[in-house]
């Protein structure tokens, strides 16, 4: 079961991060949070970028764990697949959530 977890963990985190940031974007637009200012910055951008960076950070930690002696699987096959899905999770997070840092929100 632990081996299955190793294989599934990074994509699962991507899915949670993707849904959460999409949900956060919905909250921002649905509840008028875009009007709140922090200094010269409007609140949503730092909030979205922080969530984006957090998601990337978590994926990097997971990937590191999958390479570490402590957490890696004893099976060579599971090690390979879990690292491949780990990279998938990281790249998917960086690419699919990039709009959080770059595109306009609530338009």
């Amino acid at each position, binding site marked *: *079961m*632990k*081996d*299955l977890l190793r*294989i*599934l963990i990074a*994509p*699962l985190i*991507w*899915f949670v991060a*993707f849904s959460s*940031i*999409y*949900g956060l*974007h*919905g*909250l921002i*637009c*649905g*509840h008028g949070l875009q009007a709140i200012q922090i200094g010269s910055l409007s609140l949503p951008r730092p909030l979205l970028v922080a969530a984006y960076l957090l998601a990337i950070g978590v994926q990097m930690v997971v990937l590191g764990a999958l390479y570490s002696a402590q957490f890696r*699987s004893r*099976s*060579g*096959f*599971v090690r*390979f*697949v879990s690292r*491949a*899905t780990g990279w*998938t999770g990281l*790249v*998917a997070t960086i*690419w*699919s*959530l*990039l*709009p*959080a840092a*770059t*595109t*306009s*929100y*609530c*338009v």
Partner: protein
Amino acid sequence: MNTLERHRKLSAIWASERGLKGWFSTVNHTDLGRMFLVTAFFFFLVGGILAMLIRAQLATPHSAFAGPDIYNQIFTMHGTIMMFLFAIPTFEGLAVYLLPKLLGTRDLAFPRLTAYGYWCYVFGGTMLLVSMLFGIAPDGGWFMYPPLTGAIHSPGINTDFWLIGITFVEISAIAAAVEITVSILKFRAPGMSLDKMPIFAWYALVTALMILTGFPPLILGSVLLELERAFGLPFFQADLGGDSLLWQHLFWLFGHPEVYIIFLPAAGIISTILPVMCRTSLLGYGWIVAATLGLAFLSFGLWVHHMFTTGIPHMGLAFFSAASTLVAVPTSVQIFAWIGTIWKGRPELHLPMLHILGFFLTFVIGGLTGVMVAVVPFDWQAHDTAFITAHLHYVLFGGFVFPVFAGIYYWLPHFTGRKRFFRLGEVAFALIFIGFHITFLAMHWVGLLGQRRRISTYQPEDGWTMINLISSIGGFILAIGIAIVLVEIILHAMTANRGKRNPWKAGTLEWAMVTPPPAYNFASLPHVTSREPLADDPGLPARLARGDGYLADPPTEGSRRETLTVDISTGRPDYHVAYPGNSRLPIILAAVTGLFFLSLLLKTYWVTPLAVTGVAILGWLWVWSRGHKKDMPPQPIGRGIKLANSSTVDRSPGWWGSAFLLTADATFFGSLLFGFAFLWTVAPGWPPPALFEPSALEFATGLAGMGISAISIRRAIGANRVGDKPGAWLVMALAGTGLVAVICITLMLRAPAPPGHAYGATLLVLGGYGLFHAALATMMILFLMARVRGKFAMTACRAEFSVVKLWVDYAAVTGVLILMAAHLPGALG
């Protein structure tokens, strides 16, 4: 015992009843797999005839033989049948038939569940067919968007047939998914570690997990829309706090993964057959497994790309557009792995290979048009045109039907034990391939010229006449090709000569048996040391038949069907399993389940509680028959190994089955919470006019009930394990679930005006969900009490306690979340 004696004894134990009655009582996976496939192919033909009617209607502007009302039913049923009654059941049938053979075991994890799923599929599908015969078939399109399908705009029974019939059929899909998941993880030949699993098993595992997490949002959507239609709970009515976009989210949360649920098993067929056709091994096994998993996950992040024209903000569009382009990467990994396999092998152009080549060309074109519609500006232009219809047919016909035909021709000698004689298949392939591309290339073209999908006719001056005529001619060529396939299969099954074993010289275990396969699959179970055991050891079938493997000796007393399970990762033998025998319980339970759905459809609500009671009684009998009054000692499995019986372990098949069923259940619940949050955030008319009045007493009582039940069931398990009587703790657990039930009823009664606003309606559903699970947990605890009272050997047989604990814990955790969702908004003001 010699080979023939062993065969006779095992056949007597495992065979279905003879004659027609065997159809209704069989729980054998080979029989049920064939029944699934034949039924699915029947529905494919019905869906195909409907497609021909569509093409006949659109062939010229003057050929309209059906008015818009009937035409709406025709295209709705075409899509519905192909998606729900052909594609998914074909995967189920193929997996049910093949998996135990590929995995080197004797049956799936829950044989009676396989049968129950099959009969739910048959009854649910029949319900939809009957609606069509009476001219009251669903007519809102296969994705049933409200408000069109709400009670105001579609007041008839047509939409109800879809919502209730499809939910009924989806029980079959969920049952099969649980079955397949547990079977692949636990029911394999000893030695078959994860890296030695046949590649089709990986695809089937991923597909089954996707069904468990992809189907519940649609089931929830169907339940909510039916509640709106039947009882006026306004989940999708904008003037009463609902939002029709909620349906689109729930539908496409299912609908997009559904595309991959259909494609992945087909890709599994390709990955299995292609290396055999190329006389080599699959290139990049590990990469393909990783790509399949990546594809499965990414497919859950694409659902909004079906909603690009609904006015979602740019950032939302960009998220889903990015994810949609990304999904091309793991798909390409698989395509390149297959091309590499062809490159390193020596391809032989047998008939399955022709269909694989047809798949390649068609699917790649479908994938490329998929990338086109993933780009938002293009999608805005092409949305709801025939271009989209053409794209989805390239993906689904190319990505599913060609591989399935390859699979049919590849495994036909296995299904029948005969060799191909009538060489009609090559002609059929040519007609199908040419006909398909004429039909749908033309449809791309006419879509780009502006022809909307689902129109029942058009004007000559639109300039689409010639293209539509060409498309219709292509459609009929395609239909002739499929008819020839049907004729060839029937002739083959009835008249062809007996074939030799393993005609393709494949390396996987399904060919390590006589064909057609015996009811028990393997006379003794193999010890697996590689991915292609038969290629490494051509003498394996003879040795297994001689009894050189595990479980070679049939039980001396009784007619117990037995197999063994393995550790998930390593493939080390884990425990022994005794199966139930042939039974009519699955078909009876499916019929009573059908009565429940029928009572909702016909609005004869007095029958509903009777049907629910019937299901509960039959469910009780289902499990009760599995009890033992004497301890099951460790069972010998051969080679000097003894294994504990599954009734004496904590992680029994029932526990695994429950865990994966609860995964689907949790997805359903998560979707409900998502719907609640979505309405609160996006829908007009929120916050609601009146919030639920919070009550500290009710909140605390609910929490206490959940805590008591969760703690008491653990104490009951502890007492049982050391030989004490667990009865008192079970009574406490019962009291706890009873309290939870009472609090849920209170929540339902106090929900503010459910028909007046989506807020109250959602609280009513949340309360009903909590009540249902509290009632289920209560029934399970009562079951344990009856077991203790009946003096079943409970101390050793502890598997049932672990299963009940899982359900009690689930009821407690979801109960806490329901209480918070109901009470916190009011408490926070």
